[in-house]
């Protein structure tokens, strides 16, 4: 099968479904999701708890096998890759930023950032790493270890690590969830600047203020994309989320899916 690759598309999913077999009633975390993420865009994914946003991110990033459907990242079909190829994809084509930073406490800042490149078996370009750390505002902290940094600084190390391999997409899962307001604003401003410079970013969040930094917000409910909001403001996002939550509560009360 030949696939025509649209160079303006960074990531796409086709009829992506994911069902969890819990022994009782199966849980449909994703129901045939079709999604196209433009190159260089900053997309926020929002939705009530259990709406499928984390599953969507895990499937899109190749961390989880969907029940059916496909994910394309550039010219790779993520859903067709084996475990080893997926690990390589995470080293060279995908960057991750998580709520809990996931830095190795034994390594210095610069060693943490360069680790994916070393895992790839390449000697890192130290000058390039230092430029990257300067870009995220940590040029003076390269030899510190994570426990010596604030939460916001640790998250910026994680962002630098996500960018080291110049990935096609950076996935951020609640990147400001563990941060105070000021640090959160710094991290979001950094993500916005990266997107403006052409980096594709997909961020899962429950915070309307964080989502307002994105180009477009996708709203998920019961495993489906139910709404989109381009050029969002915090207020608009909060209003839509509130409506979605009301809808979910009503559906729960009557036992009807959205």
């Amino acid at each position, binding site marked *: 099968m030949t696939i025509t690759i649209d160079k303006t598309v960074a990531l796409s999913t086709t009829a992506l479904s994911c069902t969890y077999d819990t022994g009782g009633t199966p849980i449909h975390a994703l129901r045939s999701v079709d999604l196209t993420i433009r190159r260089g865009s900053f997309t926020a994914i929002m939705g009530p708890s259990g709406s499928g946003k984390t599953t969507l991110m895990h499937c899109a990033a190749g961390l989880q096998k969907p029940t059916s459907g496909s994910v394309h990242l550039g010219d790779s079909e993520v859903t067709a890759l084996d475990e080893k190829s997926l*690990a390589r994809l995470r*080293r060279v084509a995908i960057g991750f930023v998580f709520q809990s930073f*996931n830095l190795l406490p*034994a390594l210095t800042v610069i060693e943490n950032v360069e*680790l*994916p490149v070393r895992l790839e078996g390449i000697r890192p370009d130290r000058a390039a790493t230092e430029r990257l750390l300067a870009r995220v505002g940590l040029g003076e902290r390269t030899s510190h270890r994570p426990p010596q940094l604030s939460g916001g600084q640790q998250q910026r190390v994680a962002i630098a690590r996500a960018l080291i391999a110049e990935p096609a997409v950076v996935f951020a899962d609640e990147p400001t969830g563990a941060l105070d307001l000021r640090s959160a604003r710094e991290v979001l401003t950094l993500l916005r600047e990266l997107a403006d410079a052409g980096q594709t970013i997909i961020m899962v969040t429950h915070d309307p203020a964080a989502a307002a930094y994105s180009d477009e917000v996708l709203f998920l409910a019961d495993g489906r994309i139910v709404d989109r909001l381009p050029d969002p403001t915090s207020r608009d996002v909060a209003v839509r989320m509130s409506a979605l939550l009301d809808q979910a509560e009503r559906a729960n009360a009557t036992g009807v899916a959205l």
Partner: protein
Amino acid sequence: MIRLALLSIARHRAGAAATALVTLVGVVLLSGMAGVMATGLAASTPGDDRAFLVQFPAILGSWILGIVAFAVISTVGVALGGRTDEIRGLRLIGATPGQVRRMVAIETLVIATTAAVPGVLLGYALGAVIVTTTATTGVISGAGGFVPGVLAPVLAGLIVIAAATIGAFVGSREAANRSPIGEPTAKRRSQAARPRRILAGALILIGLASSATALVMEPDSVYATAATGPGCVLVAVGAALLATEMLTLAERTLLVALHRLGGVGARLAATNIRIAPERIRPAVTFLTLFVGVAAGTLSMQSIENQAAGSGDGIGQLMAAINYLVVLLIAAFMSIALINNLIASIKQRRGELAVMSSIGATTGQSTRMLVCETAMATIVAVVVGLVGSIAAVIPFAILKTGTVADAVQGLPLIAVVIAASGIALLTTVITGKQTARTARAV
């Protein structure tokens, strides 16, 4: 990757110390045996002493090597249990399971090499003690003295280093292959369990078959002991490999009893074993091995004494070998057991901190841990005793003609007291200390 491995050792000192101790004792035992064997092969050793000085360490050395590899695999597995987040982080940024396993293997190689140096030196001392003691009992003349040379003890050290490194690579398989976003699914877990179950079944069958060959031998044949001894060890190893299954079975049958005990500690222990049996599994594994091997070997000796009275030269030789096997394996298993119990309790500091923050007393938390260890001990004692008795039955029939003589009261009671004493005492001391210092952050 090498730098990361070296830094990890410094970061995870407790796990590194546990691995170092297991390797150290392994090297002491194996290089000691190598020294004895080298003495047996030395030109200056009298011909009459050769058979004992070569065969004795050859038989014992192979058991020790197998047990060291087994202990390292378990120790590394437990130590990695406390590094789940770190491994998940590595996997998330693109480390393959192979890279994670190589990192763990390099760490173990460095630790094992460091531990092997004093190990070989202590091994020389052990070898000298064995040779002089055996000479004192008159089994050998000892006229040639203790001449271990350099090559054999050092080679033994290198073999243990290699076994530990390979053991670490094998022992890290499950942790490295785990999904970076969560726990393995039930289906995956049972797939991983199948080869282990098959191996366990095969070992038990081979062990029982080895023991059964005693039935076709003459009652005073040395080979009856030579077949039953390894039979006991194989059955014990096979049973130890089935620790997870035994725990599940015990949890189902003993759960009601634990709930009836009424205490919150007992209830929590029952829940913990049901939800996370892997935390207590290494304790069951080592306890089963300890009980199985010690009970089997001591029972054999007791049957031998009952059948032959004081015994002749060969009987004395076999007695010496049996007691030494039990002593060495029991000492080694105790160290591995204590190591693993301490590591697994310390890893639960966070959980104990949560309990403390909601008002649990140190006593309540400790009782919960003690109940879990007690459950592990009951399982290991039952399985270990049944296995050892089954493996000794043909020997009992051969020596005394009575199946019932396979159950030797005194040795079995002594083994059970030793096993439960070590396990419970370690849990009480470590549990109390950890529960007292664990505070929610």
